[in-house]
């Protein structure tokens, strides 16, 4: 298992003034696994993502990403290099597509670096040299692959902002995959999806895990998604890790139940809740 290690978070702490958003968090995410981070609102889940993708510089801790070419420290990497050198891609809770560009352009712009390398400061692009033409063809192929994969092929020439909501979510995932990441961070990809779209999303994420062999890090509130597809669940509460394990174990962890349902002063669940939980553990 150790050679499968993709992301290692060690003693990550993030403070904003007096507020401790993340407190000494350590966990490991592996290749070919979906690692879910769950927790009540304000638990610090998105902050973890922001640390991973260079939005924040962690107050303490170490973030090691072992991509193909050996381990790299994420917290020491400049923002835009994180995806270029380390291969971390990300989607957002509130979708951030380039709404003024077409669906296809959104996917091609994500491959900017490869194209830029081929384009000799755009001169080759301007004069349509072969070297650039080849790189562009490759980029279009990759875009096409992900369009098919996400069922957006027929929308390729649409303005990204005009897509229906569910398709925008999928496009964001497709765009992130065009970066060819080794770690894909998804911030609530199922938010606002209807049950059918949510089921399709599950299939998409599973196929990304199985076919691309990358690691996925998933923040999600929708427990049906988390329990069905994740291999490994980490539960945060007030910035602290309170549980870590496979979905089944986490689901039955008393600390997790307490965090979600609240706790009484005397550390006991209200009787009716305790009863419900005992009668139907799947209600969680």
């Amino acid at each position, binding site marked *: 298992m150790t050679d499968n290690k993709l992301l290692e978070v060690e003693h990550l702490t993030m403070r904003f003034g007096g507020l401790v958003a993340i407190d000494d968090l350590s966990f490991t995410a592996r290749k070919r696994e979906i690692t879910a981070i769950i927790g009540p609102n304000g638990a610090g889940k998105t902050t973890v993502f922001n640390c991973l993708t260079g939005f924040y510089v962690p107050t303490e801790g170490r973030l090691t990403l072992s991509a193909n070419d050996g381990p790299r420290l994420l917290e020491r990497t400049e*923002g*835009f290099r994180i995806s270029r050198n380390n291969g971390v891609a990300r989607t957002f809770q509130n979708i951030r597509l380039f709404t003024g560009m077409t669906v296809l352009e959104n996917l091609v712009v994500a491959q900017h670096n490869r194209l830029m390398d081929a384009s000799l400061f755009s001169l080759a692009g301007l004069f349509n040299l072969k070297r650039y033409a080849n790189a562009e063809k490759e980029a279009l192929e990759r875009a096409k692959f992900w369009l098919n994969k996400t069922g957006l092929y027929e929308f390729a020439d649409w303005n990204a902002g005009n897509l229906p909501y569910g398709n925008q979510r999928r496009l964001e995932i497709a765009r992130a995959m065009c*970066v060819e990441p080794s770690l894909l961070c998804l911030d609530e990809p199922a938010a606002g999806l209807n049950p059918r779209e949510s089921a399709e999303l599950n299939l998409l994420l599973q196929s990304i895990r199985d076919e691309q062999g990358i690691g996925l890090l998933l923040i999600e509130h929708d427990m049906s998604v988390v329990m069905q597809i994740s291999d490994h669940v980490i539960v945060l509460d007030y910035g602290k890790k309170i549980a870590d394990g496979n979905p089944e174990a986490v689901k039955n962890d008393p600390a997790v139940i307490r965090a979600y349902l609240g706790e009484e002063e005397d550390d006991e669940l209200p009787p009716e809740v305790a009863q419900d939980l005992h009668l139907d553990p799947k209600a969680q």
Partner: protein
Amino acid sequence: MDWAYFLQQLINGLTLGAIYGLIAIGYTMVYGIIGMINFAHGEIYMLGAFHSLITFLICQAAGISGILPLTLLLMLVVSMVMTSVYGWGVERIAYRPLRGSFRLAALISAIGMSIFLQNFVQIAQGARVKPMQPLIKGGITLMESPNFNVQLSYMQIVIIVLTFVLMVVFSTLIAKTSLGRAQRACEQDRTMAGLLGINVDRTISTTFVMGAALASVAGMMVTLYYGVIDFYIGFLAGVKAFTAAVLGGIGSLPGAMLGGLLIGLIESFWSGYLTIEYKDVATFGILVLVLIFRPWGLLGKPEVEKV
């Protein structure tokens, strides 16, 4: 109605408009990508004019000014390169450190930069008007009428054709190449563009360089067309090109060109048929009207808040 006179004004207006358009592109591209008005852009244009004049004088001293195409090419290339360096430097020194600061900071910095560059050239080159001998002489008489001959000078042809070519090249660059896509991506969401691995700082620098290169072409054309320049030409031309960019819809590349042409035509027709003294009033009157009734310009899109 004297059609010959009308045609002559049309030609003059298009020539002037092409020059405004070239400068306006710099405003519009920079506004598009970082949302600020680069008030030093007029000065960049003025620097372009000076560099082309200096290059010409060097060519003359070196004795190669007789070979006209070579001289013109050298003037164009040298002034484009030198001016690009200024454009890059202005962004690097005056704007980048202020990125992420409040909006007004960059604007104030831009005005400061503009004053600095003006004074720098005034001190370095002197305040007197610099003459330039006409290099491209002659023209075609398009139409002869009893009291007026319509002239289309070769210089005007060069200006219009060169502007058209540069427009096509830059539009292709923005629409088709990876650099252009990256610029449009940065325009919409810089953070996201960075996350996709685009070097945002470099993309912004490139935008300034492109704008400066186009402005320097405009500067060189003006030097050759009017034959006189001074350190102060950047101010009025800059404000007019800015008006053109706003009129066309700031942030829109074809809009800048259209706005430039319209401003050129308005100025030329106003001077030709009404009073030449009030031509600037007419131009800026247009700016006021546009800002009141159509603040997003002719080809720009109104900003719609999406919920």
